[in-house]
Structures are given as structure tokens and as C-alpha cells.
């Protein structure tokens, strides 16, 4: 994806593209495994470079074993134990899992909160990012500036600072109420109201749609202009051109963005933490899964219990991703362009 030729083309179009190439490259993730042939001969080298290759991979090997694989195994084991950091873990079988689903009401709440959070923010981000990307892709002047400005929230949206700002913006004396007052609507404290706290956090997530937008924009630019010209000659209107040309051609990118957003939003933590001062309130309305896991692990020191939660999260994300891949064969169009 990031070949020099493309890089050169992009450079002429705008400066920000370079910064966003990585995001773009990632859109090839799904295809990429297939793209590495099992035995490639086109390389500069005829014979295998086994030893050198393993040397270059040494740090990565060490990392994969020491900070990924072993901790994962340990975490799986801990999930079947009762462990409070001090002392030794005591094996309790499936007890943690049973307790989570049968007698922990906050756990069930955190699942609902997370599902609502993911279920609203992912489609909204997709909608906003695609709409703005299509609008920007019409040969507008100042495209690079627009793109940078729309991207700014994505740069800062995950920070504690913006979480603090959001708390004030949606607070009783915040900007949202100032604006509502202009229309004569009486304001309220959004962030400390059980009904509106989660929507406020979702709004913050949707606010950062710029990252997805940049990926959409890059994909839109690769659709040949001639497709649209041909369709226009045939009398297709703007909506038909979007529906019949744009949309099918960018389904792989919609798929990629959806998977990425799903994985990320399932793990959201910082903003709910900041907005509720680490408690997930009011009345557990912003108790995202990660936040509850953090509370169990690092405030209650229930390491075994929290490990069980971690594995349930892993399985949930795995299932959601698998579902996406399964469904993709019905709606993702991998045509030869």
C-alpha cells in the first residue's frame, strides 16, 4: 500500500497524507496474511536466511514469549483462582466465572453499558466519517486543511485532558447548556445524570471520527474518476453513483474500519474513568467493562476475578471479530479494480 509511487503521488496532494499512510496500510491487514507467499522466490535471495532472520526477530521473540504468551497463560490460570496479590493463588475452578454471571449485578451492568456504548458509537462514527469523507472528496479547495482539522479530535480525544474538558462542557455550567439556553431550553448537568452520562461519553467517542474519515478518504481517492464519468453519461444521479459505485468499492474499508472500531471501543477506559472520577457513576451508568475490570483488579485487588473478566473480554472481542469476518462474505466486495 505504501509504495514509493503512491507516496510521491500523495505528497503532491497534501502533506498530511504521509502521516496517515500507516492507518491506510493497516487497511490491508486482512489481505496481508494471504499476500505473504509461503515460499517466495522473487526475493533477492535464492537461499533462505534462517539464522540472520531469527537474529533480527530476537527482540520480538523475547517479547512474544515474555510479555505476551506467558502472561496470557498465567492470566488464564489466575482466572481459575482466588488471588489477592498477597499470598498464593488458591484454585477455585470455574467459581469466578460462575459468580460473575450469577451473582455480580455490577458485572452484568458493565456488559450492558459496554454494549450500549459500542452499539451506538461504532455506527455513528462510521456514518459521520463516511459522510464527511464523501463531502471532502469532491475536489474541494483547502482539502488538506479540512482533513487536518477534522483529524485533530482523534489526536487528543483519548487524553485525560479532553476527558476533563468534556466533563465541564457537559457539566451544569458548561457550553452545551449555554448553547441550549440560546434556544430557550433549560439545561441540566448532563454528565452527572444517570440517563445522559453515557450518551455524553459516546458523544466524545463519536467526536473522534477523524481517524476513520482519513482512511475512508484515502480509499475514496483510489476510485477511478472514469467510473463516475461513465455512470453520469448513462444518466445516474448523485445518489445512484454513491450507492452503485462508491459504496460497493469501499466495502473492504468499511469492513476494516468497523473491525478496528469494534476492537477499540470494547476496550475504552480513559474517558469513562475521567468523567466519573474512576467510579463509573452516576449509578454505574458509565461503568464500562474495562473500568469495572480495573476496579476489581487494582482497587479490590481481586486478581483472579479480574483475570476471568479479561478472558471473557477476549472471547467477546474474538466472537465479534469472527462474526464480522463471517458476515463479510455477504456484503464485502473484493473485486479486481
Amino acid at each position, binding site marked *: 500500500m505504501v509504495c514509493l509511487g503512491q507516496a510521491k503521488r500523495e505528497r503532491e496532494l497534501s502533506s498530511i497524507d504521509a502521516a496517515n499512510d500507516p492507518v491506510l496500510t493497516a487497511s490491508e*491487514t486482512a489481505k496481508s496474511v494471504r499476500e505473504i507467499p509461503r515460499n517466495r522466490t522473487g526475493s*533477492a535471495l535464492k537461499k533462505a536466511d534462517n539464522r540472520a532472520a531469527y537474529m533480527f526477530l530476537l527482540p*520480538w521473540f523475547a517479547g512474544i514469549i515474555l510479555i505476551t504468551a506467558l502472561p496470557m497463560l*498465567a492470566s488464564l490460570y489466575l482466572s481459575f483462582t482466588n488471588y489477592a496479590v498477597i499470598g498464593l493463588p488458591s484454585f477455585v475452578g470455574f467459581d469466578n466465572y460462575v459468580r460473575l454471571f450469577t451473582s455480580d449485578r455490577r458485572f452484568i451492568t458493565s456488559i450492558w453499558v459496554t454494549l450500549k456504548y459500542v452499539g451506538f458509537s461504532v455506527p455513528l462514527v462510521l456514518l459521520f466519517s463516511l459522510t464527511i469523507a464523501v463531502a471532502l472528496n469532491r475536489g474541494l479547495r483547502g482539502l488538506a486543511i479540512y482533513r487536518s482539522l477534522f483529524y*485533530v479530535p482523534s489526536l487528543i480525544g483519548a487524553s485525560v485532558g479532553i476527558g476533563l474538558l468534556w466533563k465541564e462542557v457537559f457539566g451544569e455550567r458548561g457550553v452545551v447548556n449555554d448553547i441550549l439556553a440560546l434556544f430557550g431550553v433549560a439545561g441540566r448537568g448532563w454528565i452527572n445524570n444517570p440517563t445522559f452520562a453515557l450518551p455524553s461519553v459516546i458523544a466524545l467517542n463519536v467526536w473522534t471520527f477523524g481517524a476513520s474519515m482519513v482512511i475512508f478518504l484515502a480509499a475514496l481517492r483510489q476510485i477511478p474518476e472514469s467510473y463516475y464519468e461513465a455512470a453520469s453519461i448513462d444518466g445516474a444521479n448523485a445518489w445512484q453513483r454513491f450507492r452503485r459505485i462508491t459504496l460497493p468499492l469501499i466495502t473492504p474499508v468499511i469492513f476494516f474500519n468497523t473491525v478496528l472500531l469494534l*476492537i477499540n471501543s470494547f476496550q475504552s477506559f480513559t474517558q469513562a474513568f475521567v468523567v466519573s472520577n474512576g467510579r463509573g457513576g452516576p449509578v454505574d451508568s458509565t461503568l464500562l467493562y474495562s473500568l469495572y475490570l480495573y476496579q476489581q483488579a487494582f482497587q479490590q485487588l481481586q486478581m483472579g476475578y479480574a483475570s476471568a473478566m479479561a478472558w471473557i473480554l477476549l472471547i467477546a472481542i474474538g466472537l465479534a471479530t469472527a462474526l464480522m469476518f463471517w458476515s463479510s462474505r455477504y456484503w464485502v466486495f473484493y473485486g479486481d479494480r
Partner: protein
Amino acid sequence: MATVKTYDPELLRAERRKRENIRRLKGLGLHALLITILGVMLYPVIWMVLSALRPETEIFGDMGFIPTNWTLENFVRGWQLYGDLTFTQFYVNSFIICALAIIGNLLACSMAAYAFARLEFRGKWWLFAIMLGTMMLPIHVQLIPQYIFFLNIGWVNTILPLVVPKFLAHDAFFIFLMVQFMRSLPHELEQAAIVDGASYWQRYWRIILPLSMPALATTAVFTFINTYNDFFSQLIYLTDTDRMTVPVALRLFLDPSGGSSSFGGLFAMVLVSIGPVLGFFLASQRLLTKGIATQGFK
């Protein structure tokens, strides 16, 4: 459409002019729409900037949108919120971690990427698949044992748990990014080096790395932004006040005893805290493009 019924050049020209005007009008409308959306989106940030620059007492008053009494007192107060410990210390802490994270990611990820992109070896396909798979793992399944392990070897409350994983190529995303880039580099240069008797290391260090500048620069920028914004692991691993980084320190504004009464100080420090990210981003835009421009082939 009855556009080209006649060949009268005057009519044709008028027609074209009309269409041109409609197009321009549509363009203007689109600009207006986009600017409105941007205005709404960025309004909270603008509000924060203006609030940080006005006296504490006027922030929530009906003093108009533009401050009448400009002041920097909020920045001074916010900077020194914790008595002896100022944000200077928190920034130093943050930047040390960021710098080490960048070095670690650049070195370890580019080495792994070089092997995946340019070398042939047994098990490559499987290892690459594993590498991609780790990108999807939620950190939670590793977090707790990692924490217990780091606790037992005395690394908690040091920067090591935040930095050492970077030197072990833990951020698979950047490996992937560099693999994609390195794969596209032509083989001729490396072949010439082989003929000249260059070792694997020389080929990596002298040829592939310099050519991969754009990918390296992107990695550096995104590592900085991610590490600087990272809250979760810094919250867990850094507990002493003098070890705290900017995001962890900002969190103290939430503490009722910490000084949340000072909204001016809060806004000022939030503004200062997002500064480096925006600055790095703006500066890197030019650097990144120059990187591409100078590294191309003639």
C-alpha cells in the same frame, strides 16, 4: 436535457457559464456546511482556550464569549498546583518515557520488520500471522500477570514496565506498518550490496533503514502521541507523585482535595497538556513529507 440542441456558440457559452456558476455555488454551500460542522466540533476546545485566558471568576459568568480581561494567571496557578511539585517535573517524566518508547519502537520494530519483509526463513508465514494476531489482543489478558511480575521484580513505580516492552517490539502495529513499507522497496540496491559483500546487518542498517525514513518517522510520531496520551498503564505503574506523568497528574484535578475548585488552572493545564501532541503532529507533517521527498528514487 436540452443542452446541446443548437450550435449557436453564444448560447453554448451562456450555458457553460450558467453551469459553472451553479457548480461554484454548490462549492460555496459545501464549504459553509463543513465550516459550520467544524465550528460546532471545535467549539469546546475554543471555549477552553478562551476560559484559560480569562480570570477565574469570569469563566462561568455572563461575561461574553471573548474575554475582556486577558490574563495568564491560570497558567501560573495550574502549573504549580501541587506545591513543590510543578508540571515541569511531570513533563520531564512524560518526555523521558516518550523518548525511550520511540527509540525502542524504532529499533525493535524495524528489526522484526526487516526480517519479515526482506528475508526468507522457515516458519515465516506462521510467525507473521501470529504477529498480526497479537494486534487484536486486548491488553487486559496480559495486564494482571504482567503487573504481578513487575511488582515482584520491583519494577512498579519505575518507568521500566512502560519502556522495556517497546524494546521487545510489543507494538505489533508498527512492525506491520514497516513491513508494508519495506516490502515495496526495490531489491536492486540490496542485491548490489550483497555483491559488495555487505552483511545482513549492513544491509539493514545502511540500506533499508535510511530508505524507510517515512515509515520510521510515522512510527516515531504515533509512538509519541500514543505514549504521551496513554493513561491506563501509567496510572497503574506510576504511583509516587514525583514519578507522575502529565496525564496521571491531570487526573489529580478530579480529586476534591486536589484543587478542582480552580477551573481556570484546570483549563490552562488541559490546554498545555494537549500542546505537545498538536505540536508534534504539525511539525511532523512537514518532516514526513520531506522524508518522502528526499528519499525517492531518481
